């Protein structure tokens, strides 16, 4: 039984460009640069030095603390440098540069055959942690940490996020079609780690072939494959929980507060790879697409691969003027294409004739209020932000904004509402830091 979440919008999906394109495996070559920070939390600490030889899957950076993740060599070769590269947040990030030797040889102990069902939940957790797995839906939260909720928060339901509600992106779709066994295998392991009674796979109705594929693989097992109506942001964690379980994550809380854990399908596949074959997170599926891309595609590509290798064969038009990491609703616009694929790079979107919008006055049409999945009044927040009224914005629940972009998408005045909201949140964060420091 599928429920509705409030609000939402229906942007054009543009998924026809790539939904039918089978995953192309891109072989590693040249210099791959693995950033030490590709996840939420503390960056990894390099444990190799310039000149070291490394093998595919070998650990090259240690996790620092509980909310962190190790990094691994995506192919065999030599460490040619440890130096900063362009990061996705506009700041440089330290990276380990590895020149591929063309052999792609596995490190010892990697790519073995192992029965994941024989592993205990604790062993599975250690494997997930050691494999450097982070949330691959874009948030890049360290998965081992997410799968270790405190005992006071028992988990009775685990959801697999196969929604991929962002326009243009089709990586998860192809993954479920072509590697569905691994996705389901990983989901089973996650369920076992958490001891969850209820297990549901959620897939949006624009991927009925993936629904059929997953249903076939699930067979008669006690896992529901639920079809959800196409509405953005159906794949947002909170909205998915509402739709599949009719529960709401308490304001300011996390899904575990209502007994739920949500995992992206690609993360589940990575968990299976680590458990069954001891392969750490060294590659992912990325969709490169956009109206400026004449030859889009879904690629299985090693972490650290420079974008230019993907762009080279994608036939970018000369009017391309925007590069977004992720989807068009929540992705991060970039200043340069000189970046590398990281654990969170689900989509590379290249747009042409992109406009910058000045934004006019709010005409109070109410479309943003109708569309907001969090039940906020985005127009009020945008006006408060415009007028620097930060404390009043806190009263308007600005902290509950998930920055999904629905409000800004629908605004007829083209107001940059999400931008105002980020501005407000940033200022409130600074205020909180100032207050903490003043309190000593």
């Amino acid at each position, binding site marked *: *039984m599928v429920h509705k*979440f*409030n609000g939402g*919008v229906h*942007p054009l999906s543009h998924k026809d460009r790539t939904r039918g394109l089978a995953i192309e495996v891109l072989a590693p070559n040249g210099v791959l640069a693995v950033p030490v920070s590709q996840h939420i939390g503390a960056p990894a600490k390099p444990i190799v030095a310039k000149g070291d030889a490394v093998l595919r899957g070998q650990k090259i950076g240690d996790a620092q603390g509980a909310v962190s993740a190790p990094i691994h060599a995506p192919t065999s070769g030599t460490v040619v440098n440890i130096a900063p590269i362009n990061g996705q947040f506009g700041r440089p990030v330290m990276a380990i540069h590895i020149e591929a030797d063309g052999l792609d040889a596995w490190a010892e102990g990697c790519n073995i055959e192992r029965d994941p069902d024989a592993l205990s939940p604790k062993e599975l957790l250690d494997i997930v942690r050691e494999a450097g797995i982070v949330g691959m839906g874009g948030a890049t939260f360290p998965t081992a940490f997410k799968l270790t909720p405190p005992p006071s928060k028992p988990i009775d339901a685990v959801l697999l996020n196969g929604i991929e509600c962002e326009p243009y992106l089709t990586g998860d779709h192809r993954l479920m079609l072509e590697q569905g066994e691994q996705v389901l295998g990983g989901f089973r392991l996650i369920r076992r780690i958490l001891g969850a009674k209820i297990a549901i796979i959620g897939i949006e109705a624009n991927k009925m072939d993936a629904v059929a594929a997953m249903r076939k693989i699930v067979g008669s097992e006690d896992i529901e494959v639920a079809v959800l109506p196409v509405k953005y942001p159906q794949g947002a964690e*909170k909205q998915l929980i509402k739709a599949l*379980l*009719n*529960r*709401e*994550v*308490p*304001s300011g*809380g996390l899904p575990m507060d209502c*007994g739920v854990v949500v995992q992206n399908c690609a993360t589940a596949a990575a968990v299976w790879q680590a458990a069954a074959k001891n392969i750490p997170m060294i590659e992912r599926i990325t969709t490169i697409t956009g109206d400026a891309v004449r*030859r889009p595609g879904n690629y299985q590509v090693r972490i650290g691969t420079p974008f*230019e290798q993907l*762009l*080279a064969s994608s*036939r*970018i*038009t000369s*009017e391309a003027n925007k590069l*977004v990491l992720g989807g068009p*609703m*929540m*992705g991060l*616009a*970039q*200043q340069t*294409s000189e970046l590398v694929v990281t654990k969170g790079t689900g989509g590379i979107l290249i*747009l042409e004739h*992109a406009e*910058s*919008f000045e934004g*006019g006055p*709010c*005409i*109070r*049409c*109410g*479309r943003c*209020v109708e569309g*907001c*999945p*969090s*039940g*906020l*009044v985005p127009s*009020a927040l945008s006006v408060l932000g415009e007028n620097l009224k930060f404390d009043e914005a806190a009263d308007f*629940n600005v902290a*509950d904004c998930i920055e999904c972009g629905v409000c800004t*998408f*629908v*605004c*007829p*005045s*083209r107001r*940059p509402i*999400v931008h105002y909201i980020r501005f407000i949140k940033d200022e409130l964060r600074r205020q909180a830091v100032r207050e903490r420091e003043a309190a000593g």
Partner: protein
Amino acid sequence: MSSESKEYRHLDKLLVSSSPHIRSPESTSRIMWTVVCTLIPAAGVGVVVFGWRALIVLMLSTGAAIGCEYLIQRLRKVPITIRDGSAVVTGLLVGMVLPPTVQWYVPVVGSVVAIGIAKHLFGGLGGNIWNPALIGRAFVHVTFAEQMNSGWHLLKPSRLFVGDVMKVAGENVDAVSRATPMTLIHQTVTGGEPEGINSLSEVLSVSQSGSGPFMPDPAHALLGYMNGCIGEVSVIALLLGGLFLIWRGYVKWYVPALYIATVAVLAALLPVTMHVNEMGLGDRWIVPMFSEGTGQATLAVGATYVSYHLICGGLMLGALFMATDMVTSPITRKGLIIFAVGCGVLTVLLRTYGGYPEGVCFSILLMNTAVPVIDRLCKPRVYGTGKAVAGKGGK
């Protein structure tokens, strides 16, 4: 569009902005110009029924609105926004709520007050609390009271559009002069004229000939052949425009529906006074819906009375186009419901117990005043708060 493909491309000179990076095709000017188009049918009927003078009034009001906005923005040295169509909407509405016989300066003053004072003094588009067209109308209602309360002329059927609606006497009479249906009802239910009317059914069947007031034939009323302001007479034309706006999503269906339904219910049930006889003895209170008893034929009288409330007096224009103005109405669903019902209540109260036969204009303005408070009190429920999180739900 050139589709150069290159083997390798290094992209820089990239546009960097906050997400989202796509927008729906909706825009303020698209909304405004669509509203203009949906007003044209009703304005058109008005021009047909009231003649070329009505066209001049509309052109003056619209032109003055555009000109006023242009001048003010020039003087303030801010970007000129007349192309977004919002001034055209206001100007057209000002003209549509005027009688067809007003002097040229009435629509001009109405528009200048609407645009200059009600809109730009509050900061321009989006900043005003009160519906600008209604402020303009309220101003001229009071300032040019005589012109606004008389001159209810109607072209004869043989002289539609081409006739001069001012020619009601002498040779080549083009038009007839009557009080509006709303005036007649208002006078009756507030215990005034006309004399010799002892029941609602008598009021409603007042003859259409002669020089006295008359209730229009229902078919005529729906099409628009009746007295009133230029743009308020044709229910069908207004409905066509309004339904289109609802279909496009620019108007929420429940706002005009609740407004009209509230007026219907209250007009049926709110007691009104009737003179009993010429001597004014024994004024009695009647409930319009049941004034003739509760038999089927007699309920019809009440229903006819209610339907005149809905068709006349600018209710359709107000419910579909004024109460639904985005800027001056609440922004949440709960708020809009309260707003619509409030407008309905005030309209009937003003019409039935107030001094003017007019209720729509002032009731909407009064509710506009309440909108900031309504918005404050009617915020939607935030996800993750309230009853939804009390239990763990289930599956």
